């Protein structure tokens, strides 16, 4: 039931909305196939990001893929957190552990999700940034992958989604967007810092590719 519901929401409704109306194109979506479990790491420009990525997840993985979102935004009350789970399949994590020492550890929440055999969609930048500028990655993704070395990380760069729904704006507008999906990364001995660096570099490489793609001016 849950799979069918999510299939209709993401693969029919949102898929139509994002490909036909907004104009999103996935480049390399085949690289998502064939992984039992994965961590999708992407740059973050807008609230539309998680939904866009969910439309590209293979059907049989859909109900087992959980985008990670901030509890101070998508979980301000019981009702909003229910909606976040019911329609978007989100997992909520507290972002400001330093200010509220009582909060549970976000790394542990994500680790539990992975231990249950589910996949996650993660934005290592931590919060939405300006379109076209990559913020320094938070190290959380490194600590998480250090504990789960058998699971691959798939780097993703989204170009143009910042123009669809920029931070601090309520108007959603169509804009041609390209989502570049990279090769899966496996980690063996790297430390948390190194893992974070490698993922950041791979996403920057995809960004380079998108810039090159645009400058084929004769």
């Amino acid at each position, binding site marked *: 039931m849950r799979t069918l519901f999510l299939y209709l929401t993401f693969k029919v409704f949102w898929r139509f909305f994002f490909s036909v109306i907004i*104009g999103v*194109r996935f480049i390399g979506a085949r690289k998502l196939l064939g992984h039992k479990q994965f961590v999708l790491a992407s740059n973050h420009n807008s609230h539309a990001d998680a939904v866009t990525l969910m439309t590209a997840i293979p059907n049989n993985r859909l109900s087992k893929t959980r985008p990670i979102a901030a509890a101070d935004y998508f979980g301000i009350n019981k009702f909003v957190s229910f909606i976040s789970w019911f329609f978007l399949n989100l997992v909520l994590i507290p972002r400001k552990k330093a200010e509220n020492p009582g909060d549970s550890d976000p790394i542990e929440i994500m680790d539990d999700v992975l231990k249950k055999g589910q996949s996650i969609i993660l934005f290592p930048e931590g919060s939405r940034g300006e379109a076209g500028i990559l913020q320094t990655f938070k190290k959380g993704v490194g600590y998480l992958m250090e504990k789960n070395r058998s699971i691959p990380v798939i780097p993703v760069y989204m170009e*143009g989604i910042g*123009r669809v729904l*920029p931070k601090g*704006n309520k*108007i959603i*507008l*169509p*804009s*041609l967007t390209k989502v570049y999906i990279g090769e899966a990364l496996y980690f063996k001995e790297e430390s948390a810092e190194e893992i974070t660096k490698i993922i950041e570099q791979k996403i920057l490489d995809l960004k380079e590719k998108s810039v090159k793609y*645009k*400058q*084929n*001016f*004769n």
Partner: protein
Amino acid sequence: MDKLIASVNLSGEIQMVIGVILGILLLSSFLFWTWGLFRSSAGLTELKTRTKSWWGMATLFLLAALISPIITYIGIGFLSFAALREFYSVIQLRKSDRAGMLWCYLAIPIQYYLAYMGWYELFIIFIPVFMFIWIPFVLVLSGETKMIMTSMAGLPTSIMLCVFGLSHMAYLISLPSIPGFDPGGKGLLLFLIFITQMNDVMQFIWGKLFGRHKILPKISPNKTWEGFLGGLVSSMIIGYFMKFLTPLGDGEVIIISFLIAGVGFIGDVVISAIKRDMGVKDMGGAIPGHGGVLDRIDSLSMTTPIFFHLVYFFAY
């Protein structure tokens, strides 16, 4: 289903043009295929990609234009939408322009609904008068005045190019029928698109074969006087033989074809100049070998209103 097929009631003239279009596509595909057997080059591969795309575009267009008028209105409306979306993805606008952009998108269904209703008086002034007043006001309401002049000029221009001009294609279907003229609005639409696109192709062919003297080297280095004039003359000849699709006389149809070719060139170089300014080669990547939607319909956005008003003047 039976009802739908019964409504596809094509006059002999239109059936003939469909035959001609299929013939041209088959001939060029065959030509490039045999040419490829003897010699292959990068140029030929591009021609093949382009021809493949032409097959797709011709099929889509003929289906949209001939099955039912409702699909024609929706199809042309979506074409406007795709063109406008490409335009906004390429030009640089401010964050405070987003409300104005939203109104420009909303103008599309309104304009096409007016075409569908056949309310000519409002159809013809909705964008040039009402939206021209409303868009700058919405921009003012955003409160940000830095660079507002560029947005005030750019947004109305974007809907004039992508919506107002193209929506005249939809209005051709809404024109009252003329007694004794079978093809009707469908015929006029087919004539306009056939001549505009053949003019583009002819300019390309003449330019490739005989092109020596560049017209606007700074804007469009591939455009030559030989190509332009060759296209002009070819379009007039093709237009003369396609006269049966229109209710016009010999002289009128030649004048119209001449203007389609000339104005098509203008549309082409205007969009080229915008692309130069923004530093991109193509407006998008929707059509392999051609670029974006707007790269294909650049000439059409200007030939459509000219064609519409000339036909209106001559025949009504």
